[in-house]
Structure formats: C-alpha cells, structure tokens
C-alpha cells in the first residue's frame, strides 16, 4: 500500500512502517517483523526515502527527524 496519501499525509501502512524503525533495520528485517512481503517493504521504504522520512545507511533504514515528526502528528 502507498505510504503517503495524495495530500501528503501518512497512510496507516506508512505510519506502521515508520513506527517499526525504532532501530535501524534492513528491508528483510522489517519484512520479517511486520509480516509483510519483501517487495512491499522495498516499495514503501523507497517512497518514504523520497519523502525524506527515512534514509538508508549501510543497508539499514533509519528514520529521520522529519519521519519522527510525521508519526507524532
């Protein structure tokens, strides 16, 4: 499912993906913990990265300050 709605708000699945990043995680780890197919995690992380809510560091996804702000709202 798309992580960001057309108006820019986080979708429920996008919020869940961001909330799963309490610690840096690889896509495979996110998929395992969230019981989601790997293809969905990869697509979601790409979308969240393009939105500046997540960055990729050493193959692990890390939530940004903007991402932390997004899940507070």
């Amino acid at each position: 499912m798309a992580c960001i709605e057309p108006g820019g708000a986080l979708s429920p699945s996008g919020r869940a993906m961001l909330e799963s990043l309490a610690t840096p995680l690889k896509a495979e780890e996110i998929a395992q913990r969230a019981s989601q197919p790997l293809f969905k995690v990869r697509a979601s992380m790409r979308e969240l990265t393009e939105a500046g809510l997540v960055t990729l560091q050493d193959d692990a996804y890390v939530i940004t300050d903007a991402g932390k702000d997004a899940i507070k709202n």
Partner: protein
Amino acid sequence: MEDTNIQTPINLPRLGSPAPQFEAVTTHGTLRLEDYKGSWVILFSHPADFTPVCTTEFIGFAEIYPQLKEMNTELLGLSIDSVYSHIAWVRNIKEKMGVDIPFPVIADLNKDVASLYGMVMPGESNTETSRCVFIIDDKQIVRTMIYYPLTTGRNMDEILRVIQALQTSDEHSVATPANWRPGDKVIVPPPKTAEAAEVRVGEGHECKDWYFCKKSL
C-alpha cells in the same frame, strides 16, 4: 516511395533472459519489478476489470495465493484499466463473491508494461491485454511464458504445477516428464558424452536406455 508499413522490432521477453524492468502504479502503490528480487513472481495480464472470466481467474489466483507464498512466489496482475477501476473491481469481488484479492494489480493505462511484455495481441484486441502469464524467478529471469486467448480462463493447477516443476528442477538439477506432479519420478539429465552414457546405465537409476533415466527424489 516511402514504405510506411515498416514496424520497429520489439524485444519481447525470452525464456532464460532477464525480465524487462518496469515501474508501475498498482493497487498497492508504485512498484518496481526489482522490488521482487529474491522472490519468484507471476506477472499476469487480464483483458479488463468487471468481466466474468477475469473475475473467475482473480478468484482462482486468490485461492492459490497461500500455496504460492509457501513457494516464495508472489502474484502481480495487470490490465489496461485505471487504478480506480481496479480498486472498485477488487472491492466488488470482495463484496459479491466474498473473496479478498491479496495481490497488487498494475494499472497500465499507457500500455507501458503491456508493450514491454507483448501482452496485447492485435489479432484479438488492440485495447485489451490477452491472458498472459510470465513466471519470473528469484533472480529476475523469465522462466515460463503462457498465453491464453480472451475466451479461455487459465488453469490455476497448471500454473502451480509449473512453479513446482521449475523449483524442483533448480533444486535437484533434474528435468520433469510430461504431466509430472510433486512426488513423481524425475528425469535425470541425459549424459553428454559416450563415456558418461556408459557410466549412466550402471548408476542405479530406473533406465529405459542410457538417455532415458528416471529417479525418485
């Protein structure tokens, strides 16, 4: 005089070659084929949403999805319809038939993916994709292509069987005979030298001749 009928050859997918890459809008958001690396994927097209044969096929694909997941295989549908049409149809199938469609469906309004994979058969229709099935392995290589006409719904059992056969062949370096089913004997690849042929008949397989040997897994 200028020839206006020259058609540019299209490089269509071929068995054993890398699957053409794409990015597409789907009912599950924007997906790329590369997102599926590490999983097998069945990319299939249907002629149109809200049509009866396609509805039976979507129900059939949804029914085999749990078995496909056990075989590390995902489903990805496609037609030349909008994502709104797909969403409405999937919701209609849920409402009227009680079947949840768990896999994404590509909204290929521009025919970008359909053209890349040769899914439109002008002899049948210029505006609809035929019932094409592309089985792409975990390394993104095209392993099987099956085409059904507009009138004929696909056989889910055969699609499952092909995946089982391909994965068995990969795992055990064997081939599978006609009408093979999991549990049946498999074909030992024929020897490629006279010396190997001599050895083969003494290897303890069930052999009709040096080139035709079966074994149980």
